[in-house]
Each structure stands twice: as C-alpha cells, then as structure tokens.
C-alpha cells in the first residue's frame, strides 16, 4: 500500500503537484492519467524520490519513504520508463541483472533469475541473453525494460508511459502481458499515461490529474459513469463512452437461457466485443460458450444496449 498524503511539489514557487492525497491499493494496478504538464510524472517520481516533495509525506506499507537513503529505497521499487532506458553498452542479461547486482545477489542466483525472467517475457534466454539492446525490436526492448524492473522481485512497480513508444499492435500485446504478470505476482503497479483508453483498459483504479491537482480517483466504471469535472469528461471522450463502459465487464452475469444462431463468443469476451459482433453480423442474439466449449446460453442485443446506458 502506498499512502500519498497531502504531497506538493513546487518549482520556483509554482506548484506542479498541488496537495495531492491518494491511497494506492496493494496488489492492484493504479493508473495516473492526465495531459502533459499535469504533474502525473512528478507525482510518480516522488514515490521513489527521483523528485523530492516540497511538502507532504508518502508512506510505503506504513513506512515514510524518507526513512531510507534514496538509492536503497529505489532498489526495492521497480521502475520502467518510456523509451525503455536500457543501458546500450550492456547485454540484455547484464541489463536485467542490474538491481540484483546492486543488491549483492550471488552469480548463480542472478543467472537463474535472468533466464527465468527472459522466459516469462517469451524471450529465449540462449538467444537473447547476450544480445545488445540495439539488436532488439521495440517490443523486445520494452519487455526487457519491464523484466529489468522486476528482477529483484519488487512489491511495487512504477511505470512512466511504458507503452508510449510502441506501435498499436505491439502495445496491445504488451498491455495484456502486463496485466497477466500483475495478476500472477500480485505486484502493486502505479502506471502513468496520457491515454484514457489505456487507463480504462488497465486500471483497477484511475487517478485523473490536471494542472497539478487530483480531479478524481475512482474505479474505471465510476469515472465513466460520473466524471467529477468537465475536464474528466473531455478526457473520456463522450463519443466512445458507452463502448468503453461495456468493455469493462465480460459476458458472465448477463447470459440468459435460450438459443441463438451463428458464431458463438466465449463467456470471457468483453461486452463491447459482443455488441460489436451483434451489430456487425446483424443478429439480435448470439450463443455464449463456457471455457469448456459447451453452450451456456445466449446474449441479446437488447440486454447489451440497456447495459450501455448511463448508470444512475
């Protein structure tokens, strides 16, 4: 748990982050979203003290983050930045080994950990361990960047626009990988982005910032349903709002008894995908299958349209 308590950062007397308080839930993915200059990156960097606050405190698991020397604090917190920041003169293996080396792990343990992480990120250790970063594609570099941040098994992972430099196809894959890893290890992730779509897709909770102020801190459904200010509403983009809202949940819970024709969808598909499929194929209902492939029932267009309405 990260408790951010009335934190303020001023540069030349002008507040960049203004009296922000929020509690980052443990084992959840929290997204800080805002336009450039909103103070979102500064807020993130105050957690691992790359920026020192002008006022306020940040407690990590109840302990003031000022109680440790900054470099010791940072070794316990994973850090991923836009454009990966890999060391160009070190191999992939050496890059990933950075924090374990700083922490003084022994060689065999480091080597094992490097191979374990490369495998986790679908990079064959034998093939990639000794490559240099400029011999990797953009997506591979990004994965190595995340692997490096996770190397010393931190409980907290800070990510500053981690997918900013990726093309849309690779970005989607990288986002799904991140969510999978977060679920698997229960890492507390704080991710900064300017992309509300990304925030809604990834975030368990979203903090919206503008001009140094925290405007709203809530679950995605709540942000969509009742944006706190006009600015939040603009960020969401009113045109896509019903679809984004539908995209938050899967089909389970709205499956009704009955039959329908045509291609089925799995119950794990999102409601948005189901509606899109119904509209595109001109059907009024489609069959839903369980994880074992048996037909559970159907989902109707009517139900989905009703669910897309603004909740009250």
């Amino acid at each position: 748990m990260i408790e951010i308590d009335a934190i303020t950062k001023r540069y030349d007397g002008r507040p960049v982050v203004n009296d922000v308080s929020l509690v980052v839930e443990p084992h959840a993915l929290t997204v800080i979203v805002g336009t450039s200059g909103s103070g979102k990156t500064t807020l993130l960097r105050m957690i691992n003290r790359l920026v020192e606050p002008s006022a306020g405190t940040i407690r990590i698991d109840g302990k003031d983050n000022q109680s440790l020397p900054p470099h010791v604090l940072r070794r316990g917190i994973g850090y991923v930045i836009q454009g990966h920041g890999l060391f160009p003169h070190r191999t992939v293996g050496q890059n990933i080994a950075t924090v374990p080396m700083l922490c003084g792990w022994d060689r065999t343990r480091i080597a094992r950990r490097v191979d374990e992480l490369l495998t986790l990120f679908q990079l064959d250790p034998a093939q990639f361990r000794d490559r240099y970063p400029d011999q990797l594609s953009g997506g591979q570099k990004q994965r190595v960047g995340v692997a490096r941040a996770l190397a010393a098994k931190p409980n907290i992972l800070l990510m500053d626009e981690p997918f900013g430099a990726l093309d849309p196809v690779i970005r989607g894959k990288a986002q799904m990988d991140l969510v999978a890893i977060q679920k698997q290890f229960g890492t507390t992730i704080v991710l900064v982005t300017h992309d509300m779509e990304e925030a809604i897709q990834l975030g368990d909770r979203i903090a919206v910032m503008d001009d140094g102020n925290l405007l709203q801190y809530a679950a995605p459904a709540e942000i969509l349903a009742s944006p706190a200010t006009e600015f939040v509403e603009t960020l969401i983009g009113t045109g896509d709002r019903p679809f984004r809202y539908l995209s938050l949940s899967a089909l389970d819970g709205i499956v009704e008894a009955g039959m329908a024709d045509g291609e089925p969808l799995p119950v794990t598909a999102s409601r948005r995908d189901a509606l899109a499929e119904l509209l595109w194929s001109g059907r009024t209902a489609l069959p839903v299958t369980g994880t074992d492939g048996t037909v559970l029932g159907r989902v109707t267009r009517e139900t989905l349209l009703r669910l897309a309405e603004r909740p009250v």
Partner: protein
Amino acid sequence: MTERGPPAMEFRPLRPISREMAVFRLDKLGAIIAVIAACGALMAPFATFRANRIVAGEARSVVAALPPWAAALLLAVVAAAAVIALFRSPVLIRLSASLGALVVLALAVGVAGRYLTPAGNSYARISPASGFWLLVFAFALLAADCFTRLRMPPLMRIGALVLAAVAIALVLASGTWNSLSIMKEYASRADTFWLLGAQHLTLAFGSLAAAVIVGIPLGITCHRTTALRGPVLNSLNIIQTIPSIALFGILIAPLGWIAINVPGAAAIGVSGIGTPPAFVALFGYSLLPMVANTVLGLEGVPAAANDAARGMGMTDRQRLIGVEFPLAFPVILTGVRIVLVQNIGLTTVAALIGGGGFGVFVFQGIGQTAMDLVMLGALPTVALAFAASIVLDAIVEISTKGSAQRPAT
C-alpha cells in the same frame, strides 16, 4: 542540343556497357594521382646533389640520378602503377601497385645516393628532391585511398602500421639509404637522436598523462556543476589561443621565480627554461581537449539510461562508473587522440626553450641552413604523430563497439 534532339541520343547512356568499355572507365582520384606521378617522374628533379651540406644543390632528373637499368625499372614501375590508378581496377590490385611503387621508390632513392656520390668523397650530399616527394605523395595517396576503401577492422589497421614500420626499419637496417644526406646527418648524431627521441616521447606522453589525470575529473566536475562549465572551458580556451612559442616564453618568468624562491623546487627540477616549462605548456594545451571531450561525452549519455540508472537505485558513483563513463569513453578517448597527436607536434617547439626533443634538430638545422638536419627532426615527428593517430583511431573504434554508437549487426 535542343529539346527536339533525336531520341536515340537521349537513350544512349542507358545501353548496357560492354565488358571492354567497363575496364577502361577512369577513376577520378586515380586521374589526379596519375598526373602527379607523371609530373614527379618526368618534370621534377628526382635527387639533389650538393658538394657539401650547406651549399645550394644541383637538381638531377630520374635519368641522371640513377644508373640506366634502375631508371628504366623505376619509370616502368611508376608508369604501370599510374595506369592502374588511372583506370577503375580492383582495390587489392591498386593497393599492391601503390605499395610496390613505394618500395621501388624507397630503394631507388638509395641507389641514387650511391650512384651520385663521387667515390671517396665524404662531403658530397645527396638528398631526395621534389620529384621523389611528389611520387611518394602520389602513391601514398593511392595507398591511403585503398585502405579507406578496404574498410579494414581496427586491429588489422594496427597490423598494417606495424608491417609498414618493420619494412621501413628493414630498409634502414640494410644500409640502402646510408649515402643519403639525412642518414649522414643521423650517422654523426646517432646518440643525440635517440636521446632527443626519448625526450620527445617523455614530454608528449608525460603531459598527456598529466592532462588525463587532471582533465577527466575536471570534466566530470564541470558536467555535474553547470555553473563551473562556462568559466573552466573558457579559461582553457584562452590558453589554447596563446601561440605555442609565446606560452613557452611566458612560463619562463614564473617558473624561474619559483625555482629561486621556493625551497626544494630547484632540487626536483623546476626551472625557468628546459623541460619543466615545456611540460607545463603542453599540459595547458592538453587540458581543453580532455575537459571538453569529457563533458561532451558525458552529455551524450542517453537521458533515459541515466534516469533508469537512478531509478533502479544506483548511487552517483555507481552511475558514473557503470553507466556514464563507459558510454562517454569513446568520446573521451577521442580527446586523448587529439591531445597526443597535438603534443607530438607541439613538443618540437619546446626545443626553443631548451625542452629537448626532435625540435632541437629542426632549429639547429634552420640556424645552419642545413635542410637535411631539419628533416632529421621533422620526419620522425611526423611519423610518430601519424602512428599515434592510427593506433588511437583504432582503439577508439574498438571501444565504440558495445557502446551507444555501436553499429547494429
């Protein structure tokens, strides 16, 4: 041609060129080399004959300077190499032609020395003349062009340099050049030559070492403390603009004063003239390239790598040693290269204030109007600077591998 010119004319360049045509296409640089070689061989004198070491010389053409067989051989080799240079040809053939021509030239000038020296006359001086130098220049240019085109890996370049040095040493040891004036100057000063050589290298490398020891930490400090950067770099810039002779002169007074007034200073060798002021001046000149390149190299470290290093918990020291310095190293090494080549040249001037080095021969030679003596000082200096730049260029390239500028494979 008007716009309505016959289409056949327009398309002519697009027709496939026959194999015979391709063989005879001209090489642009080769054409220049061939012209220089032709001038050197046919129009300029090959050697100069002088009755003694300071009188004006008489020019001798290739035909007059060499026995008929040697003249014919030399002209044939030069002509063949010039023709190979003139037309487009494979690089290895061009390289062999240029190296072959250089070897024949080196041997021929020795032959000229023996041929022109009257029997039993130890006062006569034979030296290579403008034609010889033009020919050497032309084929050295061809060789350099070939080496550039070959794009040899760094270690191979150092190997080629060693081979060239061995070849020159063999020619020197064989005594082929012993009848040439420059070798006669050497013969009467052999002990001094090596002493001055040692002095020259000590001064050049010593001041470089001092500049590295002081310059790199100073550069790091300037990089970290932005306020220092302007003043430090500007002061060093001012030193750099002082003409070398003036700087050597300026230092005489303060160092002389220190030698007299600071107890023990004279005992450790501080004095107004001699090696210490030369060392201090060379050190002063070396600082700017070292500090500037250190700052430049550190500035070139990717901001993301630095940010990641801090974010992962490296201390400033660990970041400097593990990330910044290795990434800045090739640029810093380029500074070392600049300093070393510059110092080898500048050390020559140090002779003026008694600093020693090959400059002693140069200034003695100027004083005596003995150009051979000037050459005895100048040629080794040029050779040293040339060798230093090739070796350090190769090291810079090796160190660049695996760093930021590493070429993708």
